[in-house]
């Protein structure tokens, strides 16, 4: 495997030095993106997002839970990600590994920082709040899981309906309206190899690159960031990626 990755890195490196990518894309082009809203009915919100051959589903369930002791009037938002073994020969069964935990936390950070969901509106009564479980389900892995997961998560939140509450309990299948969503968060993930930057790394590119950088944005602000991999990022590179993220973010938001 390692030898193959070395070969992939050589190919990627020589292509990038000519300003090219294996699939003919420009350096800052996404692969084809599609977002499908509410494919599921048992979940209170759901979406499927595809970027190229990557497919990610997000599902939302509400439960009644106890609030955190330090925030007794706030609801709970819990994000998790499953890298399903059917999605890639690289994924194994078992408890969540580092990659799925990182994926869930990066998606969560963007949504939480931008206050996409107003957790104060989840208060029911003393010691009882709504908990929103956002599950990211990776179905097919061909690179850039973070952006596909953020799109799926955001689209699922936009499709979600607020459950009806009676006597402190959820009445399943009955709703009081849409989940209020304050802002639309999207993420842009870049790869870096040598001195070259490129947007939306495919799986082959991920295997060969030095590092990645993710920037999540709202219409006006940056709201989350994450660097992954051993490579280093200069301040100039960072600012270039910031500018592209803010601009590409507008295009991505139009898909939601």
């Amino acid at each position, binding site marked *: 495997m390692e030898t193959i990755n070395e070969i992939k890195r050589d190919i990627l490196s020589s292509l990038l030095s000519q300003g090219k990518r294996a699939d003919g894309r420009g350096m800052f082009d996404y692969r084809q993106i599609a977002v499908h809203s509410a494919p*599921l009915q048992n979940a209170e919100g759901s979406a499927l997002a595809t970027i190229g051959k990557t497919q990610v589903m997000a599902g939302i369930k509400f439960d009644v839970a106890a609030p955190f002791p330090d925030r007794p009037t706030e609801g709970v938002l819990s994000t998790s990600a499953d890298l399903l073994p059917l999605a890639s020969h690289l994924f194994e069964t078992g408890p*969540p590994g580092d990659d799925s935990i990182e994926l869930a936390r990066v998606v969560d950070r963007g949504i939480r920082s931008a206050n996409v969901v107003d957790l104060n509106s989840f208060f029911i009564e003393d010691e009882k709040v709504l908990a929103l479980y956002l599950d990211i389900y990776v179905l097919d892995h061909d690179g850039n899981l973070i952006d596909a997961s953020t799109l799926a998560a955001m689209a699922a939140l936009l499709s979600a309906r607020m459950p009806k509450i009676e006597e402190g309990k959820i009445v399943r299948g009955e709703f009081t309206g849409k989940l209020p969503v304050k802002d639309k968060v999207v993420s842009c993930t870049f790869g870096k190899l040598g001195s070259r930057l490129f947007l939306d790394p495919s799986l082959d590119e991920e295997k060969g690159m030095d590092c990645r950088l993710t920037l999540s944005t709202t219409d006006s602000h940056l709201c989350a960031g994450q660097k992954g991999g051993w490579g280093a990022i200069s301040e100039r590179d960072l600012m270039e990626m910031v500018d592209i993220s803010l601009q590409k973010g507008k295009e991505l938001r139009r898909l939601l």
Partner: protein
Amino acid sequence: MSQAESNKPKLLVDGKRIDGRATDELRPIRIVARVLNDADGSAYVEWGKNKVLAGVYGPSECIPRHDQSLYRSVVRCRYNMAPFSGAEEHGRSGPSRRSRELSKVIKEAFENVIISENFPRTQIEIFVEVLQSDGGTRCAAITAASVALADAGIPMKDLITAVAVGKIDGQMAIDLGKEEDNFGESDMPLAFSLRTGELLLFQMDGLLTREELQKGIAMAKAAAQKVHKLQVEAIRKVYEEPREERFLPVKGALEK
């Protein structure tokens, strides 16, 4: 079966069931093969409101090596329910006792038909994800896994076709829905090799007489013939209408 009688709905009125079906009538079923890119074979099945995705990998090197067989391929199976798949509360992640048992009996059914002696020292992995559940997920799972194995080109003696049968309000009826499963008197999931007519999966709960059991098997087998046709059609379609893109058919199939 032991649900409180008081809130038990009437399951049969004038020979019609809750959803208007006759006792020998299947829910609407849709099967699409080859929906994932990385998996060697895949299939998506909608069975009533059940939505199930199966992916198959192999034959590939058997890891860990002490699990290898010198004589045949090792068949593995993971049946898993998405935490957002149910209509009730958010599911726990990780395998439950129920999903481990189902994974085992599904694996054993496929061990019968896969010609595993062709591939010593290898493994064949079957992964099934229940994206939405509404009673009868294991039958949908087996039906999907069977198509995914065929799509992967794994030699089998036969496709496996599964249909459940049960007893509601004193009558035998096929393909029980969730309400019927909860409030009915008996449920019996069955999987057939229709070429030989033999049973490859047999489970039952509740009370049945000898005659009811025999009648139920005949009813399930007749229905399985219809499901089998859909399985064959789905596999044929992959070759008759070859398509470049492999995506979960959200637009046509996943939407309400």
